[in-house]
């Protein structure tokens, strides 16, 4: 879920935006240091891809709907910082074009969505795959759900800090909503990774930056 402008107070905005913009520029530096020509168009096309993925929403009961993110999937393909970088840009455009989230809340939203699934997700994956190398699909699925959990935890925290909702009372509904969308995201990620493994394994060897 993306937080619209107006729902976070000054201190929360300050903290989240600082963290997020620093990560963004750090990622930019990291990408440019190692970038090769091949990577440029795929960064662009991947941004278009995740933007398209997130603009398609599926209806759920009670008038709500979910859409997928593709963030963790992209970080498995391109690496954590490239994924964060383009996800940040995609979230920025989503806030402008689709009214998913706001401009000043971009920091918070990119932490909840991009930071948790691209960067944390990627390193969790790296860690777990070393311990359990034979359970790749399971690990991918679990991590997607886990990052959705972290994201919704941060979301509740931010809204709570801004005095809009109470943490204790809202945590459960927010978490359960995100676990549903997280499971769909998990299926999506597992399916796509296997799909690519079968049809274009070369793509999985792209350098992870």
């Amino acid at each position, binding site marked *: 879920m993306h937080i619209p402008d107006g729902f976070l107070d000054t201190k929360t905005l300050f903290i989240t935006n600082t963290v997020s913009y620093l990560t963004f520029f750090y990622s930019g530096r990291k990408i440019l240091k190692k970038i090769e020509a091949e990577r440029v168009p795929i960064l662009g096309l991947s941004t278009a891809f995740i933007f398209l993925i997130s603009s398609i929403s599926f209806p759920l009961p009670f008038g709500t709907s979910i859409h997928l993110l593709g963030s963790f999937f992209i970080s498995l393909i391109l690496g954590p910082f490239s994924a964060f970088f383009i996800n940040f840009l995609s979230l920025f455009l989503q806030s402008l074009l689709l009214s998913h989230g706001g401009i000043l809340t971009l920091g918070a939203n990119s932490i909840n969505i991009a930071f948790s699934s691209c960067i944390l997700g990627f390193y969790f994956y790296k860690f777990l795959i070393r311990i359990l190398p034979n359970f790749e699909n399971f690990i991918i699925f679990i991590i997607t759900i886990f990052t959705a959990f972290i994201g919704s935890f941060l979301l509740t925290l931010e809204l709570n800090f801004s005095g809009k909702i109470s943490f204790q009372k809202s945590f459960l509904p927010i978490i359960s909503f995100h676990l549903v969308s997280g499971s769909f995201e998990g299926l999506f990620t597992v399916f796509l990774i296997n799909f690519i493994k079968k049809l274009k394994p070369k*793509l999985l060897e792209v350098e992870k930056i």
Partner: protein
Amino acid sequence: MKHHFIDRFAYERGFLQALSPIIKFITLIFFLFLLIILSPNLYFYFTISLILLILLFISKIPFFYFLKRIILITPFLAVIFFLSLLSHKNLSQFFLALIRSVLSLFGVILFLSTTKTEEFIKIFEKVPYGNLISLIFSFLYRYFYILEDELQKMKRSMISKGKKLDFKSYLILSGLLFLRSYERSERVLKAMISKGWNIERLK
């Protein structure tokens, strides 16, 4: 296939269209900050709304289009409304945020619909890593609609072959779409290089 581009009102001859994009963007950010920082005052909000409505009018953006864009935000508002009900918070807090949120969106819509996309992309050439960012935005703008068309075509072909569209078929479509984007990126790279582009241009 025909698409409604987001900047279709940017070619009108209106008030905001004539302003420099960078000034509009800075004003927008400043405006969003003001909304958050200033203590709530209904008269202030009323004045702001009036000014924004006048801007909407003299920039020749149809009111109906504006409404359609505003409505997109309602699901998010509904969720937060539900949560603040649950939290037994004072609802005036929620309505205050709602006003701020709608006014912010109002500002965003005014900025976006009066700025041509290529001018919008140019704004970002000046920020750090601007070359990379504006190139990514250019690709996004150029290929988003093409990907969407490809998705529609594949969907139709699936339906015409008697396949029901469910989550599984959506997954297959996304996978194919990603592969196609990747293959396209390889061809685009060749086109860029053949026209003399190289990675040094990003640095």
